[in-house]
């Protein structure tokens, strides 16, 4: 009868894999939401038209904005669900501690954010292409590519929301409504702080690009802090009975 | 053998008695290996520690001996030892019961001895 020796890294890795395979329904939700959002954004684009008798120009621009909004909300909800009691209890049929469970949940959330970003991008492309094919008139595609920095910002924003959801979900699980409300307030405050920098993202110049990267980094920095705090708090938690 | 869970005799004693019976019936022979506590546990559906206690008693009473790493074995002459103890024990118990019964029926000690002699003489 020898004792099993397990390292934290090994355990976290196994748990991440396990969590991703058990959260398959989560992925379906994300993908469905992205697709739905894409449908809905077809109208939420900007149109400009001008012209005279001989020439008419219509400019339609599509953006990731609405998909972003939907994704952010979805990721927030999913993260708070992952932090919930129910999910925590499932953990006790495997080898786990508060620490490894929290870390693996965070890693799983990050992976979900990556997937959400990729599916957002794909659905965006698919729909712009579909739109292109539907209109038989002459068209010029002015700019198709989505810049790396925009994509990274998308991802970073999702991560912030994910961290926020994780924090709020953890507080709710501890039945501390008041702190949860404070948490939500803090998060809203964060957004108000971040949004001004977001609004100026549409320009092309180098300064703007730098600002975008900076905003992304700010997001990731804030997320790290929120995640660290949440993990610390969860580490002290006992398992409560249904 | 089915164990009597409700008996006054503890289970480990019942196991010890059963092993003694096996020795008397020559199913376990001198210098032969006896069942391990785990085998007994499986056979009788009891905890190995309980079975182990039964074996220990026989070890203490010099009915079995232990060979390091190999298990428990029957001591030579164990059979006759058991027979002797049982005879005395059973007989003593019977006598005790007779004496008790006699006293209950208000038969004096001398009357009882006379009765015994009479029965012995009958043959």
């Amino acid at each position, binding site marked *: 009868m020898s*004792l099993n020796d397990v390292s934290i890294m090994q355990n976290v890795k*196994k748990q991440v894999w396990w969590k991703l395979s*058990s959260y398959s329904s989560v992925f379906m939700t994300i993908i469905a939401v992205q697709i739905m959002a894409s449908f809905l954004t077809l109208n939420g684009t900007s149109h400009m038209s001008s012209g005279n008798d001989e020439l008419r120009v219509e400019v339609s621009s599509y953006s990731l904005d609405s998909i972003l909004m939907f994704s952010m909300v979805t990721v927030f909800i999913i993260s708070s669900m992952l932090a919930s009691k129910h999910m925590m209890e499932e953990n006790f049929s495997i080898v786990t501690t508060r620490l490894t469970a929290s870390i693996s949940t965070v890693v799983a959330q990050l992976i979900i954010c990556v997937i959400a970003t990729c599916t957002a991008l794909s659905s965006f492309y698919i729909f712009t292409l579909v739109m292109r094919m539907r209109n038989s008139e002459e068209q010029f595609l002015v700019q198709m590519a989505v810049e790396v920095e925009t994509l990274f910002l998308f991802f970073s924003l999702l991560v912030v929301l994910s961290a926020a959801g994780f924090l709020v979900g953890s507080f709710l699980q501890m039945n501390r409504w008041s702190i949860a409300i404070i948490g939500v307030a803090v998060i809203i405050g964060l957004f108000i702080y971040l949004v001004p920098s977001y609004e100026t993202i549409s320009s092309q110049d180098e300064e703007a690009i730098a600002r975008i990267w900076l905003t992304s980094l700010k997001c990731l920095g804030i997320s790290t802090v929120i995640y660290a705090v949440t993990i610390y708090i969860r580490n002290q938690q006992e398992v409560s009975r249904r | 053998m089915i164990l009597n869970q409700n008996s006054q005799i503890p289970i480990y004693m019942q196991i010890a008695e059963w092993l003694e019976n096996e020795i008397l019936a020559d199913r376990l022979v001198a210098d032969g290996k006896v069942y391990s506590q785990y085998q007994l546990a*499986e056979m009788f559906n009891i905890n190995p520690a309980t079975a182990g206690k039964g074996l220990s008693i026989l070890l203490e009473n010099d009915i079995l001996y232990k060979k390091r790493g190999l298990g428990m074995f029957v001591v030579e002459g164990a059979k006759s030892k058991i027979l002797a103890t049982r005879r005395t024990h059973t007989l003593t118990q019977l006598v005790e019961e007779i004496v008790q019964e006699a006293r209950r029926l208000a038969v004096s000690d001398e009357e009882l001895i006379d009765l015994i002699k009479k029965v012995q003489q009958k043959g």
Partner: protein
Amino acid sequence: MIRCEQLKKKFRRSTVLSNISFQIDEPKIIALIGRNGTGKSTLLRLIAGHLKPTAGKIEVLGHNPFNHLQVAANTIFIEEHLTFPSPFTLADILKQGATFYENWQQELAEKLLAYANISLRSYHEQLSTGQRATFNLVYGLATRCTITLLDEPMNGMDEAIRADFYRAILKEYIAYPRLIIISSHYLSEMEHLIEDILCIHKGVIELHAQLDEVQTFAVKLRGDKEQIAPFIERIEVLHEYDEAPFYEVVVPAANVDIEALQTKDVFVLNVSASEVCKYITSEAKEGIDHVFK
């Protein structure tokens, strides 16, 4: 392997465990006995590291079990409310067991489930109460964890399968000895399998002894009240049943002159371990008949 020193656990309004001290040094099968709500599950959850003590000390495998990976890797806690991820079939859950537990016995698990007629393609939530209990127990046994904690594992199982699975626990224990603590209301059913009894009452350990000690601890005297009375004058009475013409009393065996009693036409009966536990944990000496008087 497990050591508790003046362990105390208090929930918001009540103190469930007030002073728990005991020590278990080797692998064995131990029954954890106590009335409903006396804190058996709480104690097991403290050992499993799910809860933190309010006061006192607990050590499992040499460490504080709360949030300790090594302890978690060698402990399994099986209870009624054990849940698994809902999209997983039972086959997936077994795979999960193999991933996380080093000593996992896949073949054993499959065979036991086949024996119990539980299909590996079903989902955990679809199982009946008894099937779920069976599955959870099989899962627990298959992990072969050094510390195996079973919280009322037989709840919901029918009688036949209970007997089978008690035997399965015994056989697994023989094949791979480990510390198994079974908390149960059905001590009489599993008395033959256990080595030690740990009895909790009113937040403390009322009894921690080997099975045969508990089995021979008390005797039941049945007969004429007047005849019995002189023998039990200064002895603690554990239980009394006084309904003419019957008179029964349960007392510790050590202080009683059994032989003398037998001559007086008094029956001296054995008291099983489960009965002893029942008597030492009851509030009233008279038993339920007293309520109906």
